[in-house]
């Protein structure tokens, strides 16, 4: 940990600092307290200067982890996460993490070192064109070769990362720029005001039309997306839903934006959404899309998507409007601001008939009601997640990986509050969960953090177990160990005649692996042991790993095959629940 050099730099007249010091001083000025990174030759001056500044640096085990930690930090807190890496391989290792943040609109700033400006472009040792490589997966990036440009670039990067639709920004700084000196003047380095996107506008007539559509709708549904959380519009969405009695369907990244226990909450929509949610959308006469982008995972075939519904799209990014689904009323702006302008025009409405119809559909559930199922000794992921939900009172931050366990988490862990589910939705990045959870824990040290991860994805970034130990943080890890790359196996079962090519996976003993890192763990084989194991993990003073040996060939139901209409779903074969077999 550093001293107060930075605050001096901020409160005192502009001072001459090295580029490396300017990096930290600017980060401190932007309110950064934690960064995640990995050193190397081209970023060494920056690391050398760290001790003078009050910023905590977490040493990761792979730079992908640094980007995911910055991402998890941001998703948990709403603040900008920061990752640092050296040139060449350090920088390229960040790319998956940057793309993950890009696809889910997460504000992170990545700082990379690069070779000296004198040898830039000569294929110098560990030189890579990282601004070129990351151009399509960042909101913007900078190549900086002069010390005096560092502070303005980093401040500008923070502004870009946070503004409008958030996203990742990369600042690549040559080694000579880190070593040179310049006058550091935080105030003078302030970026010009954000240039608003000229196509981002909400017209009076649009608001009036939207209000009219809502007033006259018989079967309206709110489609609640991640934008609600990014914009901080939870209250406004809730007011709209309650006042006009409109049921709310959520996207995967929207989970938590509207309380799971709210009577108007229908649940998750899309590929693995409950049947009634998708049926309600297909039958709707009005869809009010709030901060969501009609991803192919939620629409099914576009041509058959909610064909009878008028569509209102409230969205901050003009490029998302009319991209996939033609909408009738686009309201392009910050969701909270738009809803605040819209709400005065909305009066209370009787929605009981439509809500009753949906309630009727609810009987037609393909997702098992775990609570009422008998315990037959089998261990199913659904049991595990349901128990974790019950025991944590739904209050934990759950960070998932990608695959079947991710969908089961979405189905069986009920999120009441925003930022309690952290998951890679857009890119679907396996290996995301463990590092993202570390970032989330740094953002919210007082919160209980659970990782729910598959046996496959866990092995992609398991090296970060050592980071957990080095940083002495408490995270609970639930490995849903089905012996398969389960989600791919499921597709092979449904669409490739059960040809399980390259999906059975041999794994190490995860409990021993944890032990080798100094993390305690337990293997759990039957349902009866789940609750106790979860409690053991929670009460353990340090990080804890639970290795849940679950059914190998269980599938996620219902499922809408890619390219099918939203109402054409695959149900559990025979309508019979395998939990009731044997």
């Amino acid at each position, binding site marked *: 940990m550093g001293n107060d050099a930075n605050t001096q730099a901020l409160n005192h007249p502009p001072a001459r600092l090295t580029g490396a010091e300017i990096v930290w001083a600017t980060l401190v000025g932007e309110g950064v307290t934690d960064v995640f990174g990995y050193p190397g030759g081209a970023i060494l001056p920056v690391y050398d200067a760290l001790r003078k500044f009050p910023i905590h640096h977490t040493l990761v085990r792979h730079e992908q982890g640094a980007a995911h930690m910055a991402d998890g930090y941001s998703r948990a807190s709403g603040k900008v996460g920061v990752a640092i890496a050296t040139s060449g391989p350090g920088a390229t290792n960040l790319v998956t993490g940057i793309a993950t943040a890009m696809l889910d609109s997460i504000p992170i700033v990545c700082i990379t070192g690069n070779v000296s400006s004198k040898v830039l472009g000569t294929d110098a040792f560990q030189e890579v064109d990282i601004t070129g490589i990351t151009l*399509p997966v960042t*909101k*913007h990036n900078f190549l900086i070769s002069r010390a005096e440009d560092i502070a303005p670039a980093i401040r500008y990067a923070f502004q870009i990362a946070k503004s409008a639709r958030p996203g990742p920004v990369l600042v690549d700084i040559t080694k000579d720029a880190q070593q040179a000196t310049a006058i550091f003047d935080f105030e003078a380095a302030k970026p010009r005001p954000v*240039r608003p*996107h*000229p*196509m981002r506008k909400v017209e009076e007539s649009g608001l009036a039309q939207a209000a009219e559509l809502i007033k006259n709708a018989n079967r309206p549904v709110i489609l609640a997306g991640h934008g609600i959380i990014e914009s901080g519009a939870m209250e406004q969405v809730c007011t709209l839903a309650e006042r006009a009695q409109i049921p709310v369907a959520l996207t995967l990244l929207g989970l938590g934006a509207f309380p799971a226990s709210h009577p108007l909450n229908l649940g998750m929509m899309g590929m693995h959404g409950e049947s009634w949610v998708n049926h309600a959308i297909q039958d709707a006469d009005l869809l009010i899309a709030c901060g969501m982008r009609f991803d192919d995972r939620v629409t099914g075939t576009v041509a058959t998507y909610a064909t009878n519904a008028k569509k209102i799209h409230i969205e901050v990014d003009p*490029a998302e409007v009319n*991209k996939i689904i033609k909408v009738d009323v686009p309201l392009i702006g910050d969701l909270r601001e738009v809803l605040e302008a819209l709400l005065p025009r909305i009066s209370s409405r009787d929605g009981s008939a439509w809500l009753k119809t949906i309630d009727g559909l609810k009987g037609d559930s393909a997702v098992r009601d775990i609570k009422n199922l008998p315990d037959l000794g089998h261990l199913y992921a659904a049991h595990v997640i349901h128990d974790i939900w019950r025991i944590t009172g739904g209050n934990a931050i759950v960070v998932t990986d990608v695959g079947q366990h991710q969908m089961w988490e979405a189905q069986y862990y009920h999120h009441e509050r925003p930022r309690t589910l952290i998951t890679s939705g857009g890119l679907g990045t396996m290996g995301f969960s463990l590092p993202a959870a570390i970032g989330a824990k740094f953002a919210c040290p007082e919160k209980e953090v659970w990782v729910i991860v598959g046996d496959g994805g866990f092995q992609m970034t398991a090296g970060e177990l050592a980071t957990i130990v080095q940083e002495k943080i408490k995270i609970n890890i639930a490995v849903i160990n089905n012996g398969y790359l389960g989600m791919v196996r499921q597709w092979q079962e449904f669409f490739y005649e059960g040809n399980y090519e390259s999906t059975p996976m041999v794994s190490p003993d995860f409990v021993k692996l944890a032990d080798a890192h100094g993390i305690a763990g337990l293997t759990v084989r039957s349902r009866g042991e789940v609750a106790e194991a979860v409690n053991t993990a929670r009460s353990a003073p340090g990080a804890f790993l639970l290795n849940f040996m679950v059914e190998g060939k269980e599938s996620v139901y219902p499922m809408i095959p890619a390219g099918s209409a939203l109402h054409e779903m695959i149900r559990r074969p025979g309508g019979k629940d395998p939990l009731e077999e044997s």
Partner: protein
Amino acid sequence: MLHTFVAYVEDLPGVLTRVASLFRRLNINIHSLTVGRSEQAGLSRMTVVCEASAEAGHRIQASLYKLENVVDVDDIAQAPTVTRELALIKVAATPRTRSQVFELVEVFRARIVDLAPESLTIEMTGVESKIEGLIQVLNEGEGRILEICRSGKLTMRRGHHTSGVLKAMGAGADESAVEPAEEGAAVEQE
């Protein structure tokens, strides 16, 4: 359909790549691209002509605006414009065969800008179809075309300029300059 976008972009390294990359990402082929200084210091003007579906126009314009270095984008669409292209065409011609080329150049109101024993170079300015026409007749004639260098489409809306660039720049000092431009826009609506 053929789309024409006029973009004002900051004159900085890498900006062309950012713009071009956007079209590449959408798998859209750029027919022609011209870049040069504009009337604003520090801003370049780009004219991008590309083939894309009618609906793509909105998305391309909206996406261009999301680029940090893009200040203003005009989707020219079907608006009335003044459009020109410049072509330099080098034709193989000996003193014996020159006169036929001279005639064509005369008819097309082009100019000979270089004359060498074995070749001559024609400069031609006009709309695309006129340049295509000259190339076609040259191909049909005796003189073989050796090289063609075309500028790509340069385009400007007719009448008052409607560019939002002054507004986009947003500088307080320029505020007064914005208004006449906006009035002009109203006059010019087709």
